[in-house]
């Protein structure tokens, strides 16, 4: 409802007006959600300006920052963070764009398969990809170095998972689907007349592609690149599992070390704030990039038939390219995990003698292990609950902003987006500080709240985008025909939002169930979280158990995705 209020005079207090319009309930709900989101954010900022043990305050000071900037490695760490994030983003977005172009514009055989192959790797939780690639690329015990030595007699340790290149390779592969998903629609719904007019002006196909097609896709590429860069800055598993052993420090791993190993909340939050500043700068560029791409809007509502280019025998090369990504993205890591999960313990020789030494011991061990079973159970229950709660709260907040006349509702726009600037690990640092000493510490509530805050922006922005697209008149028509706000919300807004609600639910479920970086600081004995348990196994060197747990996890995920796909007729896209 556009109850646009005149700026000059306010005749009633906004609460009275909200009551009269019956919008107090969404306003209150949004305020509660907003408070939950803002608290850890503010705590992190506050805590970075004070020293002293957790739970005690010694007044505001700058000691943490002095320590952070006196750190001799700070510049190196900054360099590492940026290089790692930019490298992964470049690799992932570039590869994703190439795959998108192959799928959309070439006559590569096996279209149906080729279209989906770049997406399947999304299914595998990042922690499992890290584990698998470490098993493959580890310098001494790694499978690939072992093979080079055994079959080619190469003694040098060619591959090193614990190097910058290793980190960029693993996280870069994880960045491919986003690049693919951002660029596929651009290549698919490209207005053909833009290319046709170039042909008519005398441009040959290759020239046209270089001068017209790719430049017009540049803004979308830039958006995907910056978003992947931001994901790199925030990413947790790769820096901690691969960077730390190789002594390549980035901000996320430094925050983790200060909090989990040194228990220095002040230092952890100060490093966090530096990281947040980096994220904010990145987000600013993201907003700029998206605006830029809106100005370049080549995509219209018209259903164009894109011209597919006959690339001759090259089509087999392009097919191979897609297939190779599919192999590296999911098949190879999956096979490695399965094999490792079925050998008694992991080393190169035992690995190579599979399947003669196949055992199911690891599965028994893992399934008997209470921390795995409760972790699995908790992660399932929590991710379903959190998906529902977060999506609903996101819709209510978007509804409050765009559909009620509550004064000051616009501030939720900011609050709902704020966690995007806070890497999930940083949010959980904030929550640990808040909950320490309260009954909520070491409870599933803490975990749930952490996941809620971390994923809220996705639910909120998704709902906002969809609600804005629903004509206001649809609400107003309900109003004048006798509906109160709750009728409007439940009978009009929610049903119309159904398709996007389904997508958001599914996305948050998938993200939450594989989450490590929020949960890692908030788990406790008896309150384990599945992916964190795998993370711990791996850190303790129980690689075979970690692999077995990972396989069980992946099977459950695949079942869940299939159920979602068939039961809710959901399209497989993220």
């Amino acid at each position, binding site marked *: *409802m*556009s*109850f*646009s*209020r*005149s*700026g*000059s*005079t306010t*005749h*009633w207090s906004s609460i009275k*007006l909200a009551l*009269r*319009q*019956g919008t107090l309930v969404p306003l209150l709900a949004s305020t509660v959600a907003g408070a939950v989101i803002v608290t850890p954010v503010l705590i992190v900022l506050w805590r970075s300006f004070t020293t002293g043990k957790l739970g005690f305050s010694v007044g505001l000071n700058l000691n943490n920052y002095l320590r952070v900037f006196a750190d001799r490695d700070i510049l190196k760490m900054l360099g590492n963070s940026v290089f790692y994030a930019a490298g992964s983003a470049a690799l992932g977005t570039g590869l994703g764009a190439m795959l998108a172009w192959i799928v959309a514009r070439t006559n590569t055989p096996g279209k149906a398969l080729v279209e989906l192959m770049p997406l399947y790797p999304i299914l595998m939780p990042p922690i499992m990809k890290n584990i698998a690639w470490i098993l493959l690329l580890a310098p001494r015990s790694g499978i690939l170095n072992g093979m080079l030595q055994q079959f080619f007699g190469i003694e040098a340790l060619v591959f090193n998972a614990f190097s910058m290149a290793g980190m960029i390779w693993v996280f870069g592969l994880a960045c491919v689907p986003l690049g693919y998903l951002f660029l596929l629609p651009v290549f698919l719904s490209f207005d053909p007349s833009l290319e046709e007019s170039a042909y008519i002006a005398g441009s040959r196909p290759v020239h046209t592609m270089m001068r017209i097609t790719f430049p017009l896709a540049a803004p979308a590429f830039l958006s995907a690149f910056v978003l992947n860069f931001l994901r790199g800055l925030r990413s947790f598993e790769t820096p901690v599992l691969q960077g730390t052993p190789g002594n390549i420090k980035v901000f996320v791993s430094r925050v983790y070390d200060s909090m989990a190993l040194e228990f220095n909340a002040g230092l952890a939050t100060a490093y966090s704030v530096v990281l947040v500043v980096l994220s904010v700068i990145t987000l600013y560029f993201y907003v700029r990039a998206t605006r830029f791409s809106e100005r370049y809007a080549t995509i219209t509502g018209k259903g164009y038939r894109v011209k597919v280019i006959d690339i001759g025998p090259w089509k087999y090369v392009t097919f191979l390219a897609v297939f190779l990504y599919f192999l590296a993205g999911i098949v190879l890591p999956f096979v490695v995990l399965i094999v490792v999960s079925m050998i008694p313990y992991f080393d190169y020789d035992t690995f190579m003698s599979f399947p003669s030494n196949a055992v199911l011991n690891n599965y028994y061990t893992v399934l008997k292990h209470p921390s795995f079973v409760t972790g699995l159970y908790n992660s399932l229950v929590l991710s379903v609950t959190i998906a529902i709660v977060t999506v609903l709260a996101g819709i209510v907040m978007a509804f409050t902003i765009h559909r009620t*006349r509550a004064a000051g509702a616009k501030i939720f726009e900011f609050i709902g987006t704020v966690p995007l600037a806070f890497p999930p690990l940083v949010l959980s640092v904030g929550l640990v500080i808040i909950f320490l000493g309260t009954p909520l510490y070491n409870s599933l509530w803490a975990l749930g709240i952490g996941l809620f805050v971390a994923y809220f922006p996705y639910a909120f922005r998704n709902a906002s985008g969809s609600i804005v697209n629903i*004509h206001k*008149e*649809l609400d*107003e*028509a*309900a*109003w*004048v*025909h*006798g*509906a*109160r706000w709750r*009728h409007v919300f439940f*009978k*009009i807004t929610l*049903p*119309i939002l*159904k398709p996007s609600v389904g997508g958001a639910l599914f996305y948050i479920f998938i993200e939450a169930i594989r989450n490590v970086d929020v949960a890692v600081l908030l788990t406790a004995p008896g309150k384990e979280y599945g992916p964190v348990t795998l993370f711990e196994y791996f850190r303790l060197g129980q690689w075979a158990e970690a692999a077995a747990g990972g396989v069980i996890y992946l099977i459950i995920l695949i079942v869940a995705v299939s159920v979602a796909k068939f039961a809710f007729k959901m399209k497989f896209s993220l």
Partner: protein
Amino acid sequence: MSIIKVENLSKLFKDTKALDDVSFEFEKGILSFLGPSGCGKTTLLRSIAGLEVPDTGTISIADEVQTSIAAGILVPPYARKIGFVFQNYALWPHMTVFSNVAFGLKLRKTPAEEVKHKVLSALELVGLQGREERYPSQLSGGQQQRVALARSLALEPRLILLDEPLSNLDAKLREEMRVELKKLIKKVGISALYVTHDQEEAFTISDAVIVMDAGKVLQYGTPDEIYNHPAHPFVAAFVGHATIVDGKVVAVDSGVCRVLVPEFAGAMLISAAPKQAAPGNLCKVVVRNGEIRLSPDKFPEGTENVLEGVMTSREYRGGLTDHRVQIGSKEIVVTSHKLCPMIRVRGDGDTTFLSIDKSAISVIVGP
């Protein structure tokens, strides 16, 4: 009892006055708000529906106060017992035609049998029987329009508000629906407020018209009054098909005034005198294009308001033709009907004589 009464309604959007001290009262029938886009007519309608809150003023429907800023009364839209037809119909895309029409009835906890009966009779009224199970997207624009109407009528509101309901239809369908809509509203016997920017539509459909500009009511009257006696130069210009020139009242005598028009080479015109006219007043002279005689020859001595000019061009419009005649420094448009015997056409560049009945001229006092 008046179905609608509005007193001193004002609303500011940022710096622009969307409504500027609007007051009027309407007993019953169909009332149109006519004006260009941005004149405040839609804001007025939405304020009456309770979808906008004015800054000041009072709105009463059927003698019950609905909005009163001074008294702190603001009846929410869902309790005003009105119908509203939106410009883009605003049919809920996830509901069938039946559910769309039944929506308000179900909210009122009407028994299922009665809901069904009322929905079906409303759909029959608008000629859409048998389409209950369709979704809005499966209907044509005209049919969606009817569903929107049925949705409002099914609730048996005391007043129905229509916001440019025909503007999304193509020209031919618009003219058909215009007549049909009027018949329908009269048949149901409900009062209606109708927003439009099309003067022809306003004149065909309504019992009374309010012409608005820049948030102000410029004139309130029957279509005939508005057309033949525009009270404001803007009304004359908007309602259309007239040439408007500056003049000066020279004399007023027994209901007739003489006006000097310098732009018509200093011609003197006579017309019915407006009430407040006095010699020396500056004024606007409105000459309706369709009520002028043209002749290649001089008119007999004693003919009213004779002018002499030069034909500059003609535009053929099918049944009608516009003739542009230069008189002094001003061009005047004369519209002739194909069969009209009053006009004998001449070629371009020829001298032409015009005669205008005093009933075809309106004088509006004011600079």
